[in-house]
């Protein structure tokens, strides 16, 4: 009885999470001009629109530019932060660890307003660097969390062994610490990219018309003319995310296998 209830509950939770995705995906392939069921026929027209219509094409390119920039910046900064926090290089590192996670909980609207004011003063508002910086702020916590988890899994004695075998600190880092932390760095990077990809709120505040990202474009399309191109864009989003997630899972399983010990 209890077991049946548990299974039922599990199914309900999963469908609650997945149903919206399943609903939106087929609409990307409609040949109607309305974003609604029933679908009269199958067509690629909205994907075609996505890659030819100027506004959509531009937004996809923008998302890739901002996403790559954010990924690189957030991954480098987040990894450095995680390393510093691990070795307690600074006083109050416990406090800083929490501070690095703050962007996850601070309301995006608050961040957005603050950044807009600040960025205008700094002269980076409505520029690519501005958007990339804004997204990086949101993405860093994911990198810090992932890299920290990876670093926590490294036995300090492995690094000590390397030192005793003649490796100066920078070589220990390069040959031992970094290779072992790579899975965390990679999944952090994936999270950073995904964060940038679907970020709307900050983008509304700090991006100008030239930095309109895919998510931002979807957002305004919904308000203006609810085109099925949104569903096509969503399809791209979701498949892209799933591929990234699979890559992460694969990398993790590979490295875990080589790190696991048989006894």
């Amino acid at each position: 009885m209890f077991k049946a209830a548990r299974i039922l509950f599990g199914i309900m939770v999963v469908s609650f999470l997945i149903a919206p995705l399943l609903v939106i995906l087929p609409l990307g392939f409609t040949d109607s001009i309305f974003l609604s069921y029933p679908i009269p026929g199958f067509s690629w027209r909205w994907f075609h629109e996505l890659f030819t219509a100027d506004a959509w094409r531009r937004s996809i390119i923008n998302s890739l530019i901002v996403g790559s920039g954010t990924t690189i910046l957030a991954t480098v900064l987040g990894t450095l932060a995680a390393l510093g926090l691990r070795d307690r290089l600074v006083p109050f590192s416990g406090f800083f660890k929490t501070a690095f996670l703050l962007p996850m909980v601070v309301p995006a609207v608050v961040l957005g307003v603050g950044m807009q004011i600040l960025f205008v003063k700094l002269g980076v508002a409505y520029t690519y660097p501005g958007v990339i910086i804004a997204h990086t702020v949101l993405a860093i916590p994911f990198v810090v969390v992932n890299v920290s988890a990876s670093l926590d899994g490294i036995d300090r004695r492995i690094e000590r062994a390397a030192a005793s075998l003649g490796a100066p600190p920078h070589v220990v880092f390069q040959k031992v610490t970094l290779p072992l932390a790579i899975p965390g760095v990679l999944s952090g990077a994936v999270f950073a990219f995904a964060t940038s990809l679907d970020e709307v709120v900050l983008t509304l505040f700090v991006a100008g018309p030239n930095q309109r990202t895919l998510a931002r474009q979807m957002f305004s399309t919904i308000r203006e003319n609810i085109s099925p191109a949104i569903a096509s864009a969503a399809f791209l989003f979701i498949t892209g995310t799933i591929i990234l997630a699979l890559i992460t899972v694969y990398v993790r399983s590979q490295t875990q296998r080589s790190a696991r010990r048989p006894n």
Partner: protein
Amino acid sequence: MSDPYILFQNVSKSFGPLTVIKDLDLAIDKGEFVSLLGPSGSGKTTILMMLAGFENPTSGAVIVGGQHVEKLPPHKRNMGVVFQSYALFPHMTVAENVAFPLNMRGVAKPDSAARVQRALDMVQLGAYKERKPSQLSGGQQQRVALARALVFEPAVVLMDEPLGALDKQLREQMQLDIRDLHKRLGLTIVFVTHDQSEALTMSDRIAVFNHGKIEQIGKPSDIYDHPKTRFVAEFIGETNLVEGTITKVGKDRTTITLKQGGKLVVDTRPGLEAGAAATISIRPERIHFDRTAERENDFPGTVLDRVYHGDHIRVVLETRDQRFIVKTDRRMAVLDEGDKASASFTANACWVVG
């Protein structure tokens, strides 16, 4: 005699308010195998970490090969360290692991490959070069760690409970292997362990640690037969401790009176004075149940417990003065709980610990 190769002079180490090592003096010769033995928290690993350079002494001098090394970072010390957790690099193959210290020293490829092969052959793992550590058993991993710590011919090899994670049979095999390597290569080894039998079988000398101090240092047989303190007597092997007062000091024999009035005869040695309290250690295997003329001590009693161990039988004998643990051979298997028996042993079997 030449100067010792490794020298700790008046070394103390504190972590915050906690003093782990107090005024330690320790000298180790080149080519010597010294075990640091003690319970966990006795400071033995801290000494190893100070030798390896992972910890710096709070005060005092650490000298290796005539050079002060207190502030020298680990990678400049030229010491091979073997950890209990093996500490192999999981992302490298066995050969890459063993080649690591050679790469750090800029050894040329062909030379390095040959030395890696030799080192792995030495630990009988020559055929496993391309495996990842995760594909090896615990014993094999520890052999790789050993090869890695030896391949660059370090001045000193430090081992931090290297066999602690292995099962008994493998551990005994590795003990013999390490001892053999020590003899063959003339290595200077500092070996940390809490396993007294390991220390006894492998070492040239044993330093017994307790609360950050050396209780006794000496040859295994010295430590086992002539423990200086109660702690050493109890920590190294099983023993019977008997307490009493010295009543008569003769030329060859000294008599000790136990609390219940029993008399114990021990060999006289300098320092024993009539009237002083004494604790005597008697090893269980030196007590017998058959009485002979040369066994001066004899305590009749009742068998309380008898446990069969295969190669010996462990009997607990309750006497008026003392409860004795006796390890006897299997011929005495006829003894049973409740039987009357007598613990007899020579004066020579008794050792006054203090």
